[in-house]
């Protein structure tokens, strides 16, 4: 083997070692939760990884969770779904409109730049800073512990993702088609609705998934604004502390339920993650 080839294989080997280490680092907590959810309490604290060999797996935790807290967890998941979908729909409709406007027109009065920054600044705003006034406002409006309150808040805080992703997607679309339609007498709204929107559909789905995930994962607002009827799954996880300490074998079943939907959805939006999360500072 020539020196260069040898170097190549050593390089490859080194990369593989690094990938394995980093994957273990990235996935270990998930694996631990999955393993723990199939362990008996007595095995939960043992450093055992391989079922059947190192410990006897059991479905008891999942079964007990289903029997004892099934309705509560189901309600949590339902609430999370309603809140995330509602928030996504609002964020997506307002965000897509704004993204289209910002990519197609010049607004002289306020300047496009300032308006984009206006939208993006929501992501910089610490949620806790508006949580307290919102708590008081919603209390007065009798909106505490409703899904509507959380839909509004999550729509506000996920809208920047929708604006920035849709803006960059509309910018990439050719304008000629839309111009032709305008010449033929279509109105701007028709052009947007009939031509631009269908072309931007993949991006729209990706933006929706990113908004959905962040709304699903949201915890602080949910903790403050809900206590009974509108409690989403994130708050249910947080309510799992027990007088006998945290019962990890049960907790891990709940954690997995909460983690899975966004984690799986995220695998489908690879192309849009970078521009979404960097506010379009980078395309990726």
């Amino acid at each position, binding site marked *: 083997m020539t020196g260069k080839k040898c170097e190549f294989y050593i390089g490859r080997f080194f990369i593989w070692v690094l990938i394995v280490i980093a994957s273990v680092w*990235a996935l270990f907590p998930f694996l631990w939760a999955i393993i723990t959810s199939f362990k008996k309490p007595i095995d939960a*604290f043992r450093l055992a990884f391989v079922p059947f060999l190192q410990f006897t797996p059991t479905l008891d935790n999942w079964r007990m969770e289903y029997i004892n807290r099934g309705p509560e967890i189901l309600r949590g998941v339902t609430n999370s779904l309603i809140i995330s979908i509602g928030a996504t729909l609002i964020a997506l409709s307002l965000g897509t409109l704004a993204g289209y*406007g910002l990519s197609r*027109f010049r607004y002289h009065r306020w300047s496009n730049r300032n308006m984009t920054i206006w939208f993006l600044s929501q992501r910089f705003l610490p949620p806790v800073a508006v949580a307290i*006034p919102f708590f008081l406002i919603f209390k007065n409006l009798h909106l505490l512990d409703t899904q509507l309150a959380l839909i509004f808040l999550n729509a506000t805080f996920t809208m920047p993702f929708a604006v920035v992703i849709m803006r960059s997607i509309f910018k990439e679309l050719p304008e000629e088609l839309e111009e032709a339609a305008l010449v033929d007498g279509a109105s701007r709204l028709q052009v947007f609705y009939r031509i631009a929107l269908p072309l931007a559909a993949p991006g729209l789905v990706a933006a929706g998934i990113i908004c959905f995930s962040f709304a699903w994962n949201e915890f602080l607002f949910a903790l403050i604004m809900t206590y009974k009827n509108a409690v989403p799954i994130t708050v249910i996880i947080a309510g799992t502390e027990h007088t006998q300490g*945290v019962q990890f074998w049960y907790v891990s079943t709940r954690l997995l339920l909460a983690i899975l939907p966004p*984690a799986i959805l995220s695998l489908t939006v690879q192309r849009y993650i970078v521009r979404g999360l960097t506010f379009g500072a980078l395309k990726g």
Partner: protein
Amino acid sequence: MLEKNKRRVHYGLGQREKYIFVLPGMIWILFFTVFPLIYSLGISFYAGRFGKLDRFIGLQNYVKLFQDYRFWSALRVTVIFVGVSVTVIVVLGMILALILNRKMKSVRIFRMLFTMPLFTAPIALGYLGLMIFYEEHGPINSIVQALGFSKIPWLSNPVWAMVAVAIVNIWQWVPFAFIVLMAGLQSVPEEVYESARLDTSSALDIFRYITLPLIAPILFTVIILCTVESFKMFDIAFSLTDGGPGIATQTLTYYTYTTGMRNQNFGYASALSFILLAIVLTISTLFFRRYRDIYD
């Protein structure tokens, strides 16, 4: 010709229609952030206890801040936490991105797996951390003890508790730094490296004089965004340490929450919010000043 076309679309048609697109979103945000902030500013001038606003006390809440040792502690905790987190996130993300910046299928699959922590609810991450850092027979302490060391007081020692919270936060955001920095590295054309290799054979030199200046703007973006996200961190501390032991992991965000929601002192919490806001405003101004042009 093309320029002219653009101009016609931009200036000619739909002068009034164009506002239909942006106004709904802008009004929404005006209503859902500016309005509560103004309301909050009002509250911050009141003394409030047990969920009621008592009397107008002017700037006294703000004056009280400077004599409040918990505030100074929270500020210190925040600075240390954000500083440590962001440094480690960026360095680890950079190292990973530099080494894995090649077109291999395995790298692409790894990149996908690596986005999962980013999309995991931070509150769930906190509980995963609680399971892993558990002091009695948790997996990490089991390994530590098997190696012959004494077990680490992850959650009962102030310094270790901070380390634990930072590790979970780092765990969530390293993927972000990695993905973004790798996208940045891939936007550097191969020829640049090729011609650089003619001048020097030192990989370190190439990194320092070629790669680093080229991806500096992206690095800056990553640093700012990680800073803001770490600054807003709440869920992990809530589930992992509850701000403790004592107030050792109580960040400004956390202190604002406990003051407002647990002690129901809305006035003082609102004053705290405005300190938070001032800090974030400074950071975001830095960001937007640098990136104004891409939003044009």
